[in-house]
């Protein structure tokens, strides 16, 4: 009872508000192609900078190093190498899965940049930098980045 009373006193001092806003982000041609190819054809696409020849995955319009518009699309592999990982063991409202699970920074074969995604492994002992992983696609794509459900160790 004592605690409840104290809570009541504290509640008086605050106003519980929310900021609830629905957004529709126009994704642009690059995101559209990337996400659509994942969902429809289970292909992971990147774009190549005409100047430095680097392949960007995920793709974007401008190479931030050369400030060149990138227009050449290339398919990269579904497999890649883990450059770094972390295992999430705390629960937060934004997580797409129930922890524990891992995030990885993955260089897909054929890409020059790294790609951040989920790895379905919860024990840090089974993860190491340099390990190989492969994308697992969602059966029913929902037009978002999670249409690659996760990467699995191979």
């Amino acid at each position, binding site marked *: 009872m004592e605690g409840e009373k104290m809570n009541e006193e504290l509640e*008086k*001092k*605050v*106003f*519980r*508000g*929310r*900021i*609830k*806003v*629905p*957004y*529709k*982000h*126009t*994704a*642009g041609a690059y*995101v*559209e192609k990337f*996400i*659509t190819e994942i969902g429809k054809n289970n292909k992971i696409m990147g774009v190549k900078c005409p100047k430095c020849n680097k392949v960007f995955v995920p793709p974007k319009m401008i190479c931030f190093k050369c400030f060149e518009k990138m227009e050449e699309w290339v398919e990269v592999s579904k497999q890649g190498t883990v450059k770094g990982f972390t295992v999430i063991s705390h629960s937060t409202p934004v997580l797409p899965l129930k922890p524990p699970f891992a995030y990885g920074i993955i260089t897909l074969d054929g890409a020059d940049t790294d790609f951040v995604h989920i790895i379905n492994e919860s024990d840090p002992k089974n993860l190491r930098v340099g390990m190989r992983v492969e994308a697992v696609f969602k059966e029913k794509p929902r*037009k*978002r980045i999670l249409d690659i459900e996760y990467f699995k160790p191979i």
Partner: protein
Amino acid sequence: MGKKEKEFQIKWKTDLPYRYSIGKLAVKYFEELKNKKITGSKCPKCGKKYMPPRAVCADCFVEMTVEDMIELSPRGTLEGFTVVNYPFVDPNTGGMRPFPYGYGIFKLDGADTYMMHFVDETDHTKFKIGQRVEAVFKEKTEGDIYDIPYFRLIKEEE
């Protein structure tokens, strides 16, 4: 518009909860509001009477405390009005705010600043600048902002 609809869009609903501290003066204000009393704060230096009550007099840069709070009348004089007649998402709820609604700016008797609130009238021809308005309290007040759901236009000083 046709082209717009074809655009590939990613939907995202922001829903950020906040616990805003309201400050000691507002805590007192809501305590008084529960008793159907409206309060403001008076600058100890220049005497300006603020509604809503707050801790700083912006003109003098002097602090006001709970001791500087004063009672204001629930009645006031209308300075301007509008009838909102367009749809928009209310960020407080995430849903559409019902419309049309009347909305006015008025000065409560005894205050030097103005306040804006809903007014229970949606026909703009019924409003008149200079007209008297009065706070309408919920029957059972709970000491929160919803205790005064709206103001009403007083036809003649009753």
